[in-house]
């Protein structure tokens, strides 16, 4: 992966992390405020953003959950299980 690719992978991952965190944080709030309509609307928005950012990341850089392994077949190469071979989260993002 060259520097530009690494940077764009990092940016795509940040979108997923931002949306996921917003959803987690809002859900914790809703656990103790289960009738807060404004927070429920916010959670819906964050979950939609998370879904979109996750799909965008997975289509280009590999699965975040095992079910996204349908993206594993790359054109012109032997199909492989991308979940097993994509980077682990503790690896440094080289960019």
């Amino acid at each position, binding site marked *: 992966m060259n520097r530009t690719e690494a940077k764009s992978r990092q940016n795509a991952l940040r979108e997923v*992390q931002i949306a996921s965190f917003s959803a987690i944080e809002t859900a914790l709030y809703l*656990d103790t405020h289960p009738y807060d309509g404004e927070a429920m609307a916010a959670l819906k928005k964050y979950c939609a953003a998370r879904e979109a950012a996750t799909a965008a990341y997975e289509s280009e850089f590999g699965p975040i*959950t095992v079910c996204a392994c349908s993206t594993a077949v790359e054109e012109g190469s032997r199909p492989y299980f991308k979940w097993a071979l994509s980077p682990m989260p503790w690896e440094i993002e080289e960019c």
Partner: protein
Amino acid sequence: MWIYEKKLEYPVNIKNPNPALAKVIISQLGGPDGEIGASLRYLSQRFSMPYREIAGLLTDVGTEELAHVEIVSTILYQLTRGMCVEEIKKSGFDTYFVDHTAGIYPQAASGVPFTAAALQSKGDIITDLNEDLAAEQKARTTYDNILRLVDDPDVREPIKFLRAREIVHYQRFAEALGIAQERSGCKTNYYITNPSFDTGCNPTCPEPQRYTDPNAGEWCEHRPDNNSYRHYRHSAGIDPKRSF
């Protein structure tokens, strides 16, 4: 059931390895107020939590703590990568290295392996939630101490994130304690019964029952819960009217 997401909750990219920092940060992995203990505490306590939203909160916070185990482990992994023997000796990392090389092992900074003795699951909602509040503050203090010892911004940023989460969790647990007190029939007295063990003695009582403290006025009122009134008899033989 959990499903793994191949990403960190908060990014960690440490450019300069520094095993001396790993020696202290490891306490937030396997130390007395670390993330493994936090996760096990909440994920164990939730089963005896009679109120669904609080059981749900314990599940969600316990799950987030698992993500924090992964963040702290990543910090340790990156701080100890590519070490040479000279560096290991000079940094004082040799006492860890001899047992674990550069593997991630849950222990306190003092070297004591992770122990469940540092956490409690008491089966009493007031006791457990007070434990949780204290636990979040103890972890926050530990992160404060780590920030006092660390200058590298690559390390400080994820530590600051983790510290902020302790404060949010503390807030949510305090709200949960309020809900628990209200549900178990008492808003102004901080303890009356343990509704996760003491059984409701008069679930069909039509009127909320009020207990009165002659000095402080009314102190306890059983409140509606799912359209009925829950009254709890203290099975330890203590009359809640005379419990203080």
